[in-house]
């Protein structure tokens, strides 16, 4: 019997995130800030990227027979694997091509207090 199982919730994925970094740069100018000083250091901004865990968005919607659904759940829990967006796929297809539909990340439990 074909059943559909939803796996969802807040999770984090690893992404290259742009980050602004400030550093000293040697600058040459004929008339520097001080008399007789042509080379001087100036603080400048530079955009660099770094790998960070960011909140992801998506969910798995699996359909298929009971045994395949069980295997898919075990695979997700062991990974831990998180969805690449809104993934509606058969459990068999997911088990065969796991990398296509999911990526590395971790599920979180967010508790918001105001």
């Amino acid at each position: 019997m074909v059943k559909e199982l939803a796996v969802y919730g807040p999770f984090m994925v690893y992404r290259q995130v742009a980050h602004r970094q400030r550093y000293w740069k040697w600058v040459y100018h004929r008339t520097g800030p001080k008399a007789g000083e042509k080379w001087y250091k100036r603080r400048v901004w530079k955009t660099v990227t770094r790998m960070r865990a960011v909140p992801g968005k998506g969910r798995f919607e699996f359909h298929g027979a009971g045994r395949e659904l069980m295997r898919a759940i075990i695979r997700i829990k062991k990974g831990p694997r998180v969805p690449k967006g809104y993934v509606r796929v058969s459990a068999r297809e997911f088990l065969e091509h796991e990398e296509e539909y999911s990526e590395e990340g971790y599920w979180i439990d967010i508790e918001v207090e105001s």
Partner: protein
Amino acid sequence: MTSKSNHSSPIFGVTETDTVMLDFDDVTFKTARYWARRAMNWFKLRGFLILKSSERCYHVVFNRMVDWTENNSIMAWVAELSHNQGLQKWHRMQSIKVGSTLRFTTKGDKSSPRIVYREGEEDDRIRDFLRFRRQIKRMLND
């Protein structure tokens, strides 16, 4: 506003298109039962099951098999007449993804939904829903 996060497991839910399911938020048990009973009688759904998901939140599952068009119509009927904001929002989300989903595992500090009331027959969709729920829960506990 502060947020606290730690690693946990995802939320598991069952998605159905041929079973009428409702998610009442911020209502009393009697209100949820009243709307479940009224929908069952009006649409001849033959039976229902009420699960308590958290404080003042209830899930309802009906027994008769329907197609997605009728399912959507029944959900919209209850959402409109009951004036329940939570149910209306939930109905919109289910219509977008074409399938009603109800959770059956824990979510944050909320425990997994538990059965609090049964009425009518349970020989069709309710039986399948409970069987599937039992299978997944047993597997997750192992």
